[in-house]
């Protein structure tokens, strides 16, 4: 498979980033979840490409588990709970157009910054060269994107999507930095993500049943 080169990986990673932005910005929650699913498929494909490129067969295992858990199981959970929740996201604090423009500018700047100053983050010499360098920068960018969604959105369901984006960003950095991580550790980390997503979605459903809203701003009545 000589056609798998660093360029393929970078293409996949850029597609992954675009899907992430779509998942964060699309207001229709069904489409947003679909974008998240596509994002995870790209993530899985990135791992497979890495496996070919670095001749590291254990990365096929990463690609497979990512596909099963992040591209199938988690979107299924999201779709399952969405049936009983509002289909359209609660209007966020920052409007959609403003948010999209802000995100594109901010993420590009953040990516450039991390990519240029990677030596502060990269713990090894391998992480300084392409494609690991771009990968690591993208991983941190997606982490920040997820953090932004968690903090700036009011919709409890969208916040869960943000959390999963954040976790996927960490997952990409895991593969880039530590492809030799034992299977038990990957299993544990993935299980934590699935259980956390499930518990948050269950709570969101209960909140909607009891209060008739998934708006976290309306929810907060507890004094500071």
């Amino acid at each position, binding site marked *: 498979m000589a056609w798998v080169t660093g360029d393929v990986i970078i293409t996949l990673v850029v597609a992954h980033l675009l899907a992430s932005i779509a998942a964060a910005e699309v207001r229709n929650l069904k489409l947003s979840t679909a974008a998240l699913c596509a994002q995870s498929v790209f993530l899985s494909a990135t791992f497979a490409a890495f496996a070919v490129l670095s001749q590291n067969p254990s990365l096929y295992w990463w690609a497979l588990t990512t596909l099963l858990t992040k591209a199938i199981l988690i979107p299924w959970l999201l779709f399952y709970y969405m049936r009983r929740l509002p289909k359209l996201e609660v209007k966020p604090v920052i409007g959609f157009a403003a948010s999209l423009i802000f995100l594109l500018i901010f993420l590009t700047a953040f990516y450039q910054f991390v990519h240029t100053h990677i030596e502060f983050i990269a713990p090894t010499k391998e992480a300084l060269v392409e494609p690991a360098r771009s990968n690591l920068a993208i991983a941190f960018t997606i982490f920040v994107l997820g953090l932004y969604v968690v903090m700036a959105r009011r919709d409890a369901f969208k916040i869960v999507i943000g959390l999963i984006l954040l976790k996927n960003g960490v997952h990409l950095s895991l593969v880039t930095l530590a492809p030799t991580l034992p299977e038990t*550790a990957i299993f544990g980390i993935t299980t934590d993500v699935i259980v956390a997503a499930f518990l948050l979605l269950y*709570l969101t459903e209960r909140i909607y049943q009891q209060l008739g809203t998934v708006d976290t701003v309306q929810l907060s009545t507890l004094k500071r």
Partner: protein
Amino acid sequence: MGSQAVVQVDSSLPVLIFVVPLATALVIFLFGRISTVLREGAAFVGLFFTFLLSILIAHRILQGEVLTYWGMYFYVDGLSSLMELLGSSMGFIVVLYSLSYVAHHPRLGDMAERRLRVYYGLILLFLSMMNLTCATNSIIMLFVSLEATTLATAFLVTFYWSRESLEAGYKYLLLVTVGVTFALLGLVLLYSASIPYLPRSRILLLTELGRIGTKIPGNIVLLASALIIAGFGTKAGLVPFHAWLPDAHAEAPIPVSALLSGIVIKVGAYALARTITIFSPAFPALVLFVAVICSVSMLVGMMMALVQDDIKRMLAYSSISQIAYVVEGVGLGTYLGVYGGLFHLMNHTIVKALLFLTAGALMFAAGSRKISELAAQRRRMPITAFCFFVGALAISGVPPFNGFLSKFTIFLALAEQGLLWAAVIAVITGFLSIACFGRAAYQLFWTTPSDAKEGNPGEIIREVPPTMWAGMLILAGLSIAIGFYPQLVHPTLDRATNTILTLLAGP
């Protein structure tokens, strides 16, 4: 300083200590519906054996052994043993207290059977995951099991399924999960930087961190440490990562608040002791960073506690302040600092659980959690009053109670390291907490209710049932006993401190 030779012994105890509560939790989840024997009964049997195992482990540790299993993958030393001992004994007291408090709560409503099953099952599941956190020696599994303790306690916070508890539970789960993910990033950076120094295994052991730590680049250690402090600091409830803590503590059922404050936030402190403390001798900047965060935490937490009228929120904010003492001491990485930090960890577990349980007794009997409303009632609750006074004096650091000894050790440790400003802030916070708890004790137990003055006898509120005050008395007794006779716990603390010191990165 005891520096006896330590022998590594292969033993299945480190695994049993989390498998036993895990199996008990499974029994409760699967069969708890059938009868109380398989619910409360099973919980007690499971806790009894877990407690027995933790005693057995503590005994072996005091003999100068370190227990390992599966190579070095599970590793129980003095610090792990201390945490497991505290965890299993607190679990016991909390479940005992829950028998009356949770089962007879008016907000429980229908489906009580099913919800009690989940309640006891989750407590045992939490205990299992906590013991796993303390037994594992893999840096990544430390994160995985620590995150699992959060997941296990989330539905304990939302136990009442009220509007407020739903909000608190959602906030708790989301903020702590996001926060701890920062720690994962930090741990992965450390792991990645260590790969060249892991010759045979693919696992970075916590016990190897000190040896490898001096070989990896300093900027990576500092970046990773900052991420880890943010992550595990969220779990521990340090300012500015504390937003989840007051809500979760206030809206959970009282026994769960006692568990959260007594044990759950200590798991964060434990994880910090296993990672950050290791680097502190080699990186003085790290010690300073931790001291600044902790000084801010203790002051902010105590000032917020001072203005609360809700007794549960007051206790919750005080926890932010007290956990800062623990982390500050442990973060120093010196014998005196780590000793003081761990001593305060133990004392705060006992005292804060005691205070939450007494607050629960007041709420159970009087039906309010506002200090102003409780002050206006006529009560005859001598045991509760006694326990509250012991707790208030101990947590304020008044001699001769246990809180004084540990706080004083931390003051000395800070001064010894030249951090005089931090010692001064810690002393000031101590005075503030005397004011805070003195005011609460005065309003709750010394003011004469206004209607009594008018000659209106009214209804007198009676003491709570023995299953509730038994645990309170045990904790109050421990607090006094440790205060008067600290030699009681010295060997355990000394052993725990020395195990950390042997793992430190060389300067």
